[in-house]
């Protein structure tokens, strides 16, 4: 059956094809070919997705494109892709950001060797394809496929610099922690599958709502745990700051539109189910607000731009979770879109600036960026403005304001959350503008330079978008079926004042020497209040100890359980077989053997070789026989 939704299959397909061609294809490709394939694979999904989004806007926006159906026992496994307002909005965002980031990579990775470049682009395209699979999924299997493949890609991409043990360790850490989250999500999806007997999301969510209270609560909690892990929220956040070991465009994709943001998308996808369990909703909101504050506070103390942006992502997704926990998934998704734009912009422009500064990603590398790299710096400032939420002009303000409003309107419990979120918002402006102010300071006599077209075009597009999307934020919420919440004007004014307070703080931190020194010394805050260290002590070290003990590296027996039968067998030999080793019967037989040897030695002497002796023996024998014959005739 030919429907417009058939085009859904074509959305992830080009990126997947580019992955197969680059990653597993046997053909030798030169640099230009690799770049072309990667770019085509990244841009085509956007080309297909945009008309689909427009189609969705115009009319019926609820379509399913089946992939295949099969039955396992009584259950139906019907794989499908799905277009609805949620997947349309997120899909369009992801394809556009993906195209921008991969396009940008062409310049950024220009110095890489061709095989490395090939690996890089293969994985980036797979990363994009997986996220699209997850976003467009109409069933739990495709959803989980995309979800897991992202984890795999993130591992390989974070460990892209394969000779750096720090990068590999960061990749492993990211993979293990997100895998824990994956396990939670898998458990939730399988439980839902058992409830529904089907894998279609349309069937899973009602089945989950209809399930008994215990199961419902468990499933919702498991989904939340999965989202927390993937989105690097408290208490799973530790992997994200380390993940900065990968190239900057990887971080841009990882943080803005894929992987990290996937947790928020997941919760939005399962929003009806989550809303049926108030306790889990409250937990989501609390954890979201806490993470928002924690991430913002940690970001303020960072010395490294990329780590700063990493904590910023943690914090911003905390805001999304807050909205989700308050029952406003539409607001969360609007923030998702806005965040995707400004976060990728921040990463790309920061990457451009720091690359000029010979690879160091310290905030000090930003110094004088306004003069040395004007376009990138202005774009960074635009991104920072949106992140901070400068009122009325930036998209960031509209979406963040909606979240704060939702918190204010959620009753007394909400006011506490509002306070926490407001503090986070102030700190957000602070950390967002620290690099900006650093960039304003002029050093030496810099020569302004401009990157190539592949660097500048994505940055410029995204910079324009941070402002252009501003009027679209409310329509997006309405399109998703919600409405922008509006609190009393006084509250809105306080919200509008927050960024400016934060910016003032940032100026103080940058330009007042005493304060900037204190920030530089706050090691504990910089390392994310050392939660990493706690995990190291209570999980990693005992595990390593256990492994070393079980493999006999600590002086014990290697593989103790496997040794049991061997030891038992040895004991049995000792106890039962050894006494019988001096077997009397056996000795009798052996003695007989030895006796025969002796008898043979004796008998040998008769054989003299003389004819006469033999004749005598013959005669005696004959005589004996005659005697016997005679004897038998006796009566």
């Amino acid at each position: 059956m030919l429907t417009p939704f058939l085009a859904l299959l074509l959305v992830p397909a080009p990126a997947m094809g580019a992955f197969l061609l680059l990653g597993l294809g046997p053909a030798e490709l030169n640099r230009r070919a690799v770049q072309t394939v990667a770019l085509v694979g990244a841009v085509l999904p956007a080309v297909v997705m945009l008309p689909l989004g427009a189609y969705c806007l115009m009319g019926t926006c609820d379509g399913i494109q089946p992939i295949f159906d099969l039955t396992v026992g009584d259950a139906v496994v019907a794989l499908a892709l799905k277009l609805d307002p949620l997947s349309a909005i997120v899909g369009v965002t992801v394809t556009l950001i993906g195209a921008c980031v991969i396009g940008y990579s062409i310049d950024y990775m220009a110095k890489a060797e061709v095989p490395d470049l090939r690996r890089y682009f293969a994985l980036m395209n797979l990363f994009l394809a997986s996220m699209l699979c997850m976003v467009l999924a109409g069933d739990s299997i495709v959803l989980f496929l995309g979800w897991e493949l992202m984890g795999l890609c993130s591992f390989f991409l974070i460990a892209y610099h394969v000779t750096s043990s720090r990068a590999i360790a960061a990749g492993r850490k990211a993979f293990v922690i997100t895998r824990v989250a994956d396990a939670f999500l898998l458990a939730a999806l399988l439980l839902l599958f058992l409830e529904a007997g089907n894998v279609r999301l349309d069937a899973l969510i009602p089945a989950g709502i209809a399930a008994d209270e215990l199961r419902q609560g468990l499933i919702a909690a498991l989904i939340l745990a999965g989202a927390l892990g993937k989105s690097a929220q408290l208490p799973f956040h530790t992997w994200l700051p380390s993940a900065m070991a990968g190239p900057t465009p990887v971080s841009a994709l990882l943080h803005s539109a894929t992987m990290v943001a996937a947790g928020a998308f997941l919760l939005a996808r399962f929003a009806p189910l989550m809303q049926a369990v108030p306790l889990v909703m409250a937990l989501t909101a609390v954890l979201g607000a806490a993470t928002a504050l924690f991430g913002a506070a940690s970001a303020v103390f960072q010395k490294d731009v990329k780590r700063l942006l990493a904590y910023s992502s943690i914090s911003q997704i905390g805001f999304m979770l807050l909205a989700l926990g308050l029952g406003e998934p539409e607001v969360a998704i609007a923030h998702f879109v806005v965040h995707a734009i400004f976060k990728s912009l921040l990463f790309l422009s920061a990457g451009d600036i720091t690359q000029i500064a010979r690879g160091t990603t310290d905030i000090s590398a930003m110094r004088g960026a306004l003069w040395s790299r004007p376009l990138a710096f202005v774009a960074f400032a635009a991104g920072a403005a949106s992140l901070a939420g400068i009122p009325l002009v930036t998209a960031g303000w509209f979406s963040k304001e909606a979240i704060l409003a939702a918190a204010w309107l959620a009753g007394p419990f909400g006011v506490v959350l509002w306070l926490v979120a407001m503090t986070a918002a102030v700190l957000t402006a602070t950390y967002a503008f620290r690099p900006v102010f650093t960039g304003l300071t002029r050093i030496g006599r810099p020569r302004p330079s401009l990157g190539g077209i592949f660097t500048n075009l994505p940055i410029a597009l995204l910079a324009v978008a941070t402002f252009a999307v501003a009027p679209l934020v409310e329509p997006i919420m309405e399109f998703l079926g919600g409405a922008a919440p509006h609190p009393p004007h006084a509250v809105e004014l306080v919200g509008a004042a927050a960024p400016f307070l934060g910016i003032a703080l940032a100026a103080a931190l940058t330009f007042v020497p005493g304060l900037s020194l204190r920030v530089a010394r706050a090691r504990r805050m910089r390392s994310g209040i050392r939660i990493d260290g706690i995990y190291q002590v209570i999980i990693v070290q005992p595990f390593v100890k256990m492994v070393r003990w079980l493999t006999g590296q600590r002086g014990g027996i290697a593989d103790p359980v496997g040794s049991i039968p061997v030891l038992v067998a040895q004991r049995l030999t000792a106890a039962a077989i050894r006494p019988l080793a001096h077997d009397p019967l056996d000795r009798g037989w052996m003695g007989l053997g030895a006796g025969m040897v002796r008898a043979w030695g004796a008998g040998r002497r008769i054989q003299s070789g003389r004819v006469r002796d033999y004749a005598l023996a013959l005669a005696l024998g004959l005589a004996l026989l005659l005697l016997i014959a005679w004897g038998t005739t006796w009566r």
Partner: protein
Amino acid sequence: MSGFLTAALVLAAGLFAVGLFGLVARRGVLFQIIALEIMLTGPALAFVAAGAHHGDPAGQGMFVFVLVLAASEVALGLALYLRLARHADAGDSDTIRELRR
């Protein structure tokens, strides 16, 4: 049993025993061959005597057979003796003990 037959058989046994003694006691190969000949006459006599006793000509037939046997044996024995005498340069049967090995 008639006295004649008993006497003939005793004589035959005596001839055999004399031959056997010669065979075992003498070391010269030539004498041993002669002793063998004497041994053979014992059974030959016994055949003739038994044939006469039973009135059966088969006894005399057997005597002829023994004669042929003795003749061929002497021929073979003497040929061997010649071989030995040339090869080992000895007429003493005890010196030829290759069988022992």
